[in-house]
């Protein structure tokens, strides 16, 4: 396959290729796999797959289905770490095609699982195989974009990773449309929706994978000259091998930076909407009283406003991905993360005060800004890695760093849920039980700030020598 349709050699761009064709190819893949965030749209219909109108005794519980989320993010991180080197060696097209088969295949296996009513097929199909597709698809364009946009690394990776945040915005309403189209008196329509979405994503991801091109060795944007080494001490022009990178303190400091930023963000995402509803209660619909004092109809209205808040946050999440990553090209990665942690600390600590003051617009604005920095943390990290370790192994290094995301997927929800339960068990009113959680999450940001402050340029001994680099590049060709 060395010179096959999917090989690296096959996708070296011809002279005069327009580099702006690569970001939409990356977006096609990230918008497809980003549907992972929107899978909760299937929970309710799947929990009535047998009973159709109400849950039957043999129907799946939502908590059982929810394990697919955990599997998604565990397998995203582990497959990105495991296959990162393979992606670098074989090139983004082969990785994109493999991601398309895994992600879409996961949908088809899940459709079979719905048909046979076997939850294991859903867990293995979407959770495990689909999760591997997430990992491969997520890292496939990163190093390619960084190589095409050495002058705007942050913006380039921000564009792709914005797609991962935006995938559910397309996938969730599309899934609703399809389920309404396919449902019958004997089916909730999920099986057919899985098959249709699997095929749509397969086509979109293949189009993206076949749109990938790699720049020829030595290519640089017209009119651009690399900054001198002394001028930009935090941006190296040399290369660190992935196996060496994980031996550096910088890798682990950045691992902690991502872990803390994502853990705090996941915690906030999980509690933002219920927090708004419980803190403001009837005030959200212009009536007096706490949430527990409202009628069922009023509670439904408040829940609808909570859903609107969650939707607004998702917009700021994807906006932050492109905004902060692009800004980092001008202010530097380290300063950008300092802003995330310092400004984030102030906002997390101030949120309970805004709640007590009863100022809804201020409370909403605080969370919107917080969510931009959660998204920005994901999109700025690949450029930070490229600055520290060079561009040759950045995809594989990024893959290994994504295990921090898996770890955050465990830490963030555990912190939020257990602190809240502990508070409520001690008699703290529900509306105030969030305050301590916000302060604990702010504490995570302090740890992230300290880790970021300790990031220094990588020591000389970790870099590849010219001979080693020539051999590396030769192996890839």
């Amino acid at each position, binding site marked *: 396959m060395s010179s096959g349709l999917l090989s690296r050699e096959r996708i070296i761009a011809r*002279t*005069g*290729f*327009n*580099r*702006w*064709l690569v970001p*939409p*190819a990356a*977006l*096609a893949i990230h*918008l497809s796999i980003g549907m992972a965030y929107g899978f909760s749209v299937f929970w309710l219909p799947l929990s009535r797959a047998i009973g159709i109108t109400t849950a039957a005794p043999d129907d799946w519980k939502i908590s059982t289905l929810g394990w697919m989320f955990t599997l998604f993010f565990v397998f995203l991180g582990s497959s990105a770490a495991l296959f990162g080197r393979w992606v670098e060696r074989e090139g983004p097209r082969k990785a994109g095609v493999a991601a398309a088969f895994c992600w879409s295949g996961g949908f088809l296996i899940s459709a079979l699982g719905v048909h046979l009513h076997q939850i294991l097929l859903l867990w293995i199909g979407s959770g495990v195989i689909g999760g591997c597709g997430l990992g491969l698809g997520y890292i496939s364009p990163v190093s390619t974009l960084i190589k095409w946009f050495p002058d705007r690394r942050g913006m380039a990776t921000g564009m792709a990773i914005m*797609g991962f945040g*935006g995938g559910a*915005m*397309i*996938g*969730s*309403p599309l899934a609703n449309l399809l389920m309404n189209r396919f449902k019958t008196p004997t089916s909730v329509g999920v099986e057919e929706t899985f098959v249709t979405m699997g095929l749509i994503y397969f086509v979109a991801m293949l*189009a993206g994978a076949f*749109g990938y091109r790699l720049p020829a060795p030595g*290519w*640089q*944007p*017209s009119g651009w000259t690399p900054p001198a080494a002394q001028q930009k001490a935090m941006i190296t022009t040399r290369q660190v091998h992935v196996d060496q990178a994980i031996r550096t303190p910088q890798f682990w400091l950045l691992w902690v930076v991502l872990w803390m930023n994502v853990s705090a963000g996941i915690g906030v995402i999980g509690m933002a909407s219920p927090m708004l509803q419980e803190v403001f209660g009837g005030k959200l619909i212009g009536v007096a009283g706490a949430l527990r004092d409202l009628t069922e109809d009023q509670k439904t209205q408040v829940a*609808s*406003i909570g*859903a*609107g*808040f969650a*939707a*607004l946050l*998702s*917009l700021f999440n994807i906006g932050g991905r492109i905004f902060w990553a692009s800004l980092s090209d001008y202010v530097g990665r380290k300063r950008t993360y300092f802003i995330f942690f310092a400004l984030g600390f102030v906002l997390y600590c101030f949120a309970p005060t805004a709640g007590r003051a009863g100022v809804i617009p201020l409370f*909403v604005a605080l969370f919107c800004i917080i969510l931009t920095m959660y998204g920005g943390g994901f999109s700025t990290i690949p450029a930070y890695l490229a600055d520290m370790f060079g561009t040759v192994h950045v995809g594989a290094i990024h893959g290994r760093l994504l295990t921090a995301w898996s770890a955050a997927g465990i830490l963030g929800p555990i912190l939020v849920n257990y602190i809240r339960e502990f508070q409520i068990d001690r008699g703290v009113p529900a509306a105030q039980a969030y305050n301590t959680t916000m302060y604990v999450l702010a504490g995570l940001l302090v740890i992230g700030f300290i880790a970021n402050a300790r990031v220094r340029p990588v020591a000389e001994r970790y870099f590849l020598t010219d001979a080693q680099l020539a051999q590396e590049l030769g192996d890839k060709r």
Partner: protein
Amino acid sequence: MERPSASSWAGVIFAWLLVAIPLGWGIYKTLQTAVKLFR
């Protein structure tokens, strides 16, 4: 390095439209939900 040809920008616009149209639809649907917060 050679600059991309003028005609290549037509391909760029087409490729971006292919991803921008579904993304724009998704953002529109999300905004429809988000406005409930301001009613």
